[in-house]
């Protein structure tokens, strides 16, 4: 049986929770297939990062290094990773379905002539997987053939890997790359900085929709509640399209999938594309003035009210509660 290789995405010399999720899913697959789980960290100089990845119980962590891997670029990363997959004879290559995982893994699959299952939520004992389709309206049982299979996992469907009792061995390897074939160039990354928790990692998410009516109202009406409960902020597509908030706050089928302990939807109608990104949250609260809004059909607690009155009141109540 071939092994499992996990692509460990990193940012700012750090592994986000989504990477620990990929490692955990890789360990689960390895357990179910009676194989080993290896982890690959790609970059220019990543040995110390690889030491960090060694805390989670993988059979081995490989620091795959090359100057052309300094910034993430799909062509170089796919090539380096494909060569590693071939050299170790891995059967499953796994990553989380983050923006980078989605960008890289299909390219890798094509290079390996391998089938790929995207955004899976379950790994079965026989190696089949389950993935949502149709904005979460259908759950597909998927079977893949061939010596190599590529998988991205949904970050909310698996836990982060816990720390193991002893560290994995770390092996440094130079990546093999045909540099003449690489044509992509990294220009810059315009990062949206925020002091709030990451949308996909937060325990509480407060999202605003078109009902907020302006970007200014997001700041003056919604953000005080976001901060009072210590949440990450999200939004509907309508709010993003209208320019109220940045793109990367979009929750939904074609944005981010979140499943926090508490999701508070404010002025969001609950279109199927939005529900696809949040309906696995543990507790859902909806605040909407229209009692017929579909969001109430998934809400544990629904408040029919004008948000411009209810949201400041709620922020105030929470602040009082926290002070007492």
């Amino acid at each position, binding site marked *: 049986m071939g092994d499992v290789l996990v692509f460990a995405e990193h940012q700012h010399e750090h592994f986000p929770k989504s990477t620990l999720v990929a490692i955990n899913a890789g360990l689960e697959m390895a357990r179910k297939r009676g194989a080993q789980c290896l982890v690959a960290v790609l970059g220019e100089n990543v040995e110390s990062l690889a030491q960090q990845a060694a805390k989670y119980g993988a059979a081995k962590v490989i620091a795959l290094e090359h100057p052309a891997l300094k910034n993430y670029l799909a062509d170089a990363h796919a090539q380096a990773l494909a060569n590693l997959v071939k050299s170790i004879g891995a059967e499953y290559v796994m990553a989380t379905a983050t923006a980078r995982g989605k960008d890289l893994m299909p390219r890798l699959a094509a290079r390996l002539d391998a089938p790929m299952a995207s955004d899976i939520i379950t790994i079965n004992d026989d190696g089949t997987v389950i993935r949502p389709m149709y904005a979460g309206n259908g759950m597909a049982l998927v079977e893949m053939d061939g010596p190599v299979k590529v998988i991205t996992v949904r970050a909310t469907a698996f836990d982060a890997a816990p720390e193991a009792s002893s560290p994995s061995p770390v092996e440094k390897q130079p990546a093999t790359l045909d540099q003449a074939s690489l044509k992509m160039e990294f220009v810059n990354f315009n990062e949206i900085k925020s002091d709030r928790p990451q949308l996909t990692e937060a325990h509480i998410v407060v999202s605003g929709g078109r009902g907020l009516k302006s970007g200014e109202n997001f700041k003056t009406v919604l953000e005080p509640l976001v901060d009072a409960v210590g949440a990450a902020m999200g939004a509907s597509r309508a709010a993003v*399209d209208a320019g109220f908030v940045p793109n990367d706050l979009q929750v939904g089928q074609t944005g981010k999938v979140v499943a926090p302990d508490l999701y508070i939807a404010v002025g969001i109608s609950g279109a199927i594309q939005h529900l696809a990104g949040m309906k696995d949250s543990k507790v859902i609260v909806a605040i909407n003035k229209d009692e017929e809004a579909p969001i109430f059909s998934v809400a544990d607690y*629904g408040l029919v009210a004008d948000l411009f009155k209810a949201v400041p009141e709620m922020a105030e109540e929470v602040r009082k509660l926290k002070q007492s």
Partner: protein
Amino acid sequence: MKILVPFKRVPDPATTIRILPDGSGIATDNVKWVINPFDEIAIEEALRIKERLKTGEVVLMTIGQSNWQEQLRTGLAMGADRAKLIVTDKPLDTLTIARVIAKVVAEEQPRLVILGKQAIDDDSNQVGQMLAEILGWPQATFASKLEIEGDRCTVVREVDGGLETVAFPLPAVVTTDLRLNEPRYASLPGIMKARKKELKEIPIESLGLDLTPKLRVKELKAPPKRQAGRKVGSVQELVKLLHEEAKLI
């Protein structure tokens, strides 16, 4: 500049999807079929590039059944120049779809291929990236801005935590995100003109590819339904419940 736009026909996003009880697929009796919304954005972007450069050709293609002609005509009515329908009624996996598109690329020699980032029915988000690798071309997925200067293409991408800019020489593959543009509607004269535009049907068998999928959907099931909870009467009650019952605040 010649631009190829491969698109997929999908159920209208407003359609309520019903899973067939035998798990073989979705009920299609009441489905309205449309061009995948991300692919409409791809068509729009191709048309804008052509309009900006004041030269070139926009070629549409789709891989599907004969009656997908209707959506090809819609794309032609938006302003695309001609269309190819690769006819098949088999379920194909993403890698096969990418290989079929690569065959058309080899014949048409476009400088740019623009696809949607994901088909909103199967939600794979794979075909564009696979195509780029098969062709050995650069890729820019999730594009929110695209600029072409001579032979150089610069793309702003919607990624986690912000916007990333990449650049590369053409030819290349780009996939669209929602904020790239707002697609136009087909105009009446556009619809009239579209009737006369070239639409070629090509049987998939003539391409000489192995079409056996390496990935199979064995069963499609409806997800467990989430139960609606209750309405609360006031903000005070809500906060109290979140604190005492749900213990989340």
